[in-house]
């Protein structure tokens, strides 16, 4: 099944300047009872976003009309904890296309890439600059250019390059998914199985 292509994105950002945002904060376990991939965006950051009665908490960034955009900018070690892909579904379902942080948990990173959500790992210094720029002017735009692996604070920088596995980059640029790739090599898998049984 194809994933959304990601080539270049220019957008304003939503800042969450908190470290170690774990997957239980991104999507609490009680929302994991669904059996489809849809609808998780409504409960993204549920316990930070809504009070007990389900009313939006004014002080949380997703409820603040000052901030909007397709890029989530978060503190270091984003996505630690559980392997729930629901975290990536919730972020993508809300409408984000990329998450920028100075450090990502492994499983979260894989899950994001498998859903067309680009994790962009930047230096601590660059992340700090982003937070400051966004705080100063919430209309600040950031450009993420996957082809050139470059993230740029608009209009005039600074910019920084980021790493991505070449295979995953190709998948994101073209909207390919891993299962298609693996199904295409099923003969090779079968040969391996015979040799190793």
């Amino acid at each position, binding site marked *: 099944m194809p994933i959304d292509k990601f080539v270049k994105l220019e957008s304003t950002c939503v800042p969450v300047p908190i470290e*170690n945002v774990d997957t239980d904060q991104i999507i*609490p376990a009680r929302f994991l*009872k669904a059996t489809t991939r849809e609808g998780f965006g409504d409960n993204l950051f549920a316990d930070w976003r809504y009070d007990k009665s389900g009313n939006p908490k004014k002080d949380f960034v997703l409820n603040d009309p000052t901030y909007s955009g397709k890029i989530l900018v978060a503190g*270091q070690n984003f996505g630690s904890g559980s*392997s729930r892909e629901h975290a990536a579904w919730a972020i993508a379902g809300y409408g984000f296309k990329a998450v920028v942080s100075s450090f990502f948990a492994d*499983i979260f990173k894989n*899950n994001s890439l498998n859903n067309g959500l680009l994790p962009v790992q930047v230096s601590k210094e660059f992340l700090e600059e982003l937070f400051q720029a966004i705080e100063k002017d919430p209309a600040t735009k950031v450009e993420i250019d996957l082809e050139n692996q470059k993230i740029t604070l608009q209009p005039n920088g600074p910019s920084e390059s980021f790493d991505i596995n070449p*295979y995953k980059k190709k998948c994101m640029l073209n909207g390919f998914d*891993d*299962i298609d790739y693996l199904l295409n090599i099923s003969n090779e898998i079968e040969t391996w199985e015979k040799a190793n049984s």
Partner: protein
Amino acid sequence: MAGKTLFEKIWDKHVVTKVDGGPSVLYIDRHFVHEVTSPQAFAGLRDRGIQVRKPEKTVATADHNIPTLKQDQPIQDELSRFQVNKLALNCEEFGVPLYGLNHKWNGIVHVIGPELGITKPGMTIVCGDSHTSTHGAFGSIAFGIGTSEVEMVLATQTLLQNKPKTMRINIDGELGKGVVSKDIVLYIISQIGTGGATGYFVEFAGSAIRNLSMEARMTICNMSIEMGARGGMIAPDETTFEYIKGREFAPKGAEWDKAVEEWRQLPSDADAAFDKELVFKASDIEPMITYGTNPGMGIGISKSIPTFEEIEKSTQATFKKSMQYMDFEPGDAMIGKKVDYVFIGSCTNGRIEDLRAFAAFVKGKKKADNITAWIVPGSHQVEAQAEEEGIRQILEEAGFEMRQPGCSACLAMNDDKIPEGNYAVSTSNRNFEGRQGPGARTMLASPLTAAATAITGKITDPRDFL
């Protein structure tokens, strides 16, 4: 040529092919499936019109959502019931063996794999659950995956994976009185942080590890994800073989001898190089407890919460948020803090040894009146064993009740939720905000510390009783 690590030996043996400039195609020997992270993967197979490639290498159980009381009756929560039923329907449609609710082998996925002898050295094991690292205690490569990857493994029995770096964590020396494996792992995480092993597969080694039982080793590997590691593992040895021998799915007869012979080749070679090595002294570890909202925020139980000044500047905002959530003051002592709930269970500490340790501690004592205790065995087999050994009776005499198996209050997907604002000493693995219920305040600790706390009604050093 330099020797190979335990990890490299298993990894290299399972690489089917390598994508140019990209990840390896890793063959998976065993795939564990549960109700929460699989429905979308089965739906994906249906959409593509394909089957499960190797149903015989797949095994499913219902654990995350199930109630821990009245399991013989229909699940009350509609969404939970639907998800558990969905698993049964999917397993039937795709021919996957299911140890569902009320099956004699039902239990937490990471408890039943080892106890049935499904988990064995040298294997590659995955599950849509981050605590799959538990199985690494047997000297296997075991790690958690997301649902897209669950679909990948169901469809192809392989995964596209980048080879992680390797780390060895050595813990040498003798553990002090009242210090158990949970304390070792909480100590390591408190030292290196929740991202300290991100990007690495960790091998735990050293005399303190070698001296542990299999169940204690599982507790350590279980929490390797909490230091960010892709997985954790321990070299197989006589303790490992002894544990597996005779179990339901263990090799028998000549097959057994052959298997053990192969397993003996697995430990890291003496000249194998790791990308990173860390060394800790067992004698530096005391019973541990967490004070904050991630597993790295732990201290020796006799210590005080760090002061604001002791926290690195960049982490201060996060620390402050954590203190507010817990309603603790920086610099507070942990001992003597009020506790409302005690939870014994989960894939971290829900095995028979954990119940034995807890029962031996509370035997002849009485539960404090202010404590609500939930004691949840990790599987039906653990429950049956506890019954047989008289553990249930000891617990009941001390004022405790044993519930039915499941993940329970570890992640509170069922009704076992710690009420808002209440404090719980929990033998589970995560103290994240809201993990054990919205607004619940969790302090992670060993079964011994949990037992001492359950008796006194406040945070208590188990060594006071030993």
